[in-house]
């Protein structure tokens, strides 16, 4: 729960509407586009074949009705979508990006890394019920859409992905606007602004902003606390199972080094990954020498090298969105392991990835007079 959420500076409005959450969001976006606040909207839509969902940049208002902000699966991490639109320069039009909290945090993190330009982009998040595991969903897409919607209404997360079940940052963390459903009375929704950009949007829409969000805050807090306890318990168990090099090697023994997890990860932005480059391709006599030293080596001997190398490179920016686990053909609990590591490494610097754009990423930001206390110690 970031500090900006709690302070009273933010304007908030209570909207009463018979519609369900998705329809409320679409209706809000439609009005905003009518008023010219946004030229386009980026949100998930059902694919033509109806068996999956994908982010679409919608300019024609009539397409809005097919939008599904709370889609049952996360096929592409939203941060990657925003990055592909704005990496090479700021968007030429005013875009509203409707995404889950972890996707908004991923977008912030990528903007710190020069991969996203947030000018002209308004980030809209909503209370996230989690998403279904990709493999489960694909068995029967129609049925699973229904199951997902029912679970969402009941607030039941047992069918959601393991990382969603232990996600303690599933409400407003960063971004400009947030649509709150938790703690709302029947047929009412919270429209909370979290930045100046958000305030301007609500002002222009003439939404009166004197609603009281305490009930929303309270509900969000106790969900977060409960999930936090669950997270710590779950990750502690996982650590006992996968901690230490041997356990880690066994956990990843089935890994076939296909690097899907790296390719779908929002904060793995390199064009050519170090572990795909020439630096890991060695002559045959060296592989044979390695094999002779141990009698037999796994070929390619790169699986643990890649997994730990990726951990080293991105754990400080990991938003534990679970995309990697969805993409792993061998069902290895990659997202849970990386979340476990990220909680610890980010904990060291009490840094939360993507919580706030101005907060520099530890270790890769160098300050001239940063380590004086250490310097003088052994001078």
């Amino acid at each position: 729960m970031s500090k900006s959420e709690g302070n009273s500076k933010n304007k908030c409005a209570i909207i009463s509407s018979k519609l369900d959450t998705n329809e409320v969001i679409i209706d809000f976006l439609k009005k905003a586009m009518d008023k010219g606040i946004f030229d386009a909207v980026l949100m998930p839509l059902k694919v033509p074949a109806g068996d999956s969902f994908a982010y679409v940049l919608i300019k024609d208002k009539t397409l809005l009705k097919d939008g599904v902000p709370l889609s049952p699966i996360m096929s592409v991490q939203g941060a990657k979508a925003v990055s592909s639109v704005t990496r090479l320069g700021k968007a030429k039009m005013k875009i509203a990006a409707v995404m889950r909290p972890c996707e908004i945090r991923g977008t912030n993190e990528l903007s710190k890394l020069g991969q996203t330009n947030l000018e002209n982009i308004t980030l809209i998040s909503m209370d996230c019920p989690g998403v279904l595991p990709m493999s489960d969903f694909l068995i029967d897409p129609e049925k699973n859409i229904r199951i997902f919607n029912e679970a969402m209404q009941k607030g039941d997360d047992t069918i959601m992905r393991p990382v969603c079940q232990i996600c303690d940052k599933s409400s407003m963390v960063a971004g400009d606007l947030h649509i709150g459903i938790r703690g709302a009375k029947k047929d009412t929704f919270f429209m909370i602004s979290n930045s100046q950009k958000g305030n301007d949007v609500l002002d222009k829409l003439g939404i009166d902003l004197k609603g009281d969000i305490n009930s929303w805050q309270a509900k969000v807090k106790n969900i977060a606390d409960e999930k936090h306890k669950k997270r710590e318990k779950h990750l502690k168990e996982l650590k006992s199972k996968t901690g230490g090099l041997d356990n880690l090697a066994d956990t990843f023994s089935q890994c076939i080094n296909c690097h899907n997890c790296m390719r779908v990860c929002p904060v793995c932005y390199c064009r050519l990954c170090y572990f795909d480059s020439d630096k890991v391709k060695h002559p045959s006599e060296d592989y044979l020498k390695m094999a002779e030293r141990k009698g037999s080596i796994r070929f390619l001997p790169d699986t643990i090298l890649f997994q730990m190398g990726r951990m080293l490179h991105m754990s400080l920016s990991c938003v534990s969105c679970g995309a990697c686990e969805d993409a792993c053909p061998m069902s290895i609990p990659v997202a849970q392991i990386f979340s476990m590591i990220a909680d610890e490494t980010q904990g060291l610097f009490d840094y939360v990835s993507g919580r706030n754009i101005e907060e520099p990423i530890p270790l890769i930001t160098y300050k001239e007079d940063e380590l004086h206390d250490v310097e003088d110690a052994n001078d």
Partner: protein
Amino acid sequence: MTKALKINKNSEQGVLEVLKFLLEKGKVKGVFTLKKIGKDGAVAYSLITKSDELKDAVPFYPLMPVNAGKLLSRFTLRGSTTDPVIAVVRPCELRAFIELVKRDQGSLDNIFFISSTCGGVYPLKMAADKKIEENLSKYWDAVSKGEILTDLRSACKGCEEFIPYTSDMTVDLIAKNDIDKQCVILLNNEKAEKLVEDIKGGFLARELDKGKLDKFCGKREAEKKKLFNEIEAKVKGLDGFIDIFGKCIGCHGCSKVCPICYCKLCEFESPDSEYKPSNYETDLEKRGGLRVPPGITYFQIGRLDHVTISCVGCGACEDVCPVDIPLSSIYKKVGESVQKLFDYVPGKDVEEEIPLLTFEKEELSEFED
């Protein structure tokens, strides 16, 4: 009649005995084969140099974690191996490696190949769910009977190229009812004979049973037709393409594991194919909405264009797809139609030039006049 070895053990033990012999006699420095790794029985290709490490080797384990051809290319990318090495590979893996050698991505020098009449493998999903052990006996039973198991990978069910063309030794598996008692290894050339000349138990003359294998091939052909018809029904024209690839999440796993995709930086990940803000603007003028990140179908069609002339139909792409798109059927079908034009079988013979990639001076003279 080619010479052959007969070992009174099941096929796997027989091959292991030969491998042990070759290692201990120093005939080879290393052995490439599948091996059990870690405590929960994962199987992965390994490079073995000490003979007692062969105890965990499982050469014909019905799983292809990664295409061995791609591994051998990586092994010899930085120069051919001076020390002799023997690799236990499937026919499609051998063909993939040869296709890569033709493209200067590896070298055949000092590498011996043991292959087999391939009974196909289970999908990766089954290994992920740890269900292969319980289906092993069912697998070997079907192989010895020359039947096709339904839960094999679709690429294997429809595979007609199950006999290796250029392997030094071939283990006769399909439709050989005594494979659990007797292991027959055909020595296809003098190199192979010389390699095992002083192994105990002499050579005998043996041939693959053409009849049984042709019958088996007919079954595979029927399966292939069924798969192709399914795909044809699903993928009609460009819209069919868009629908079938709608689920694709752009993880490019299919290109990462494909042996023929060897580029250091894939064109569809390079700066040239990146959408600039101006492209978004013009596209949005034409159409109300644009899928983001763009280029999902563009990537699939592009890859088809790059790969299909050499696609050996090994099915690794479908195996790795997290959204279960029937990729191997699509690539096999398109591959075959392209290869038929030049009646070219990829990886069949290392000397044979790859069509489209090789330019002959007087090639298109008939069109010129």
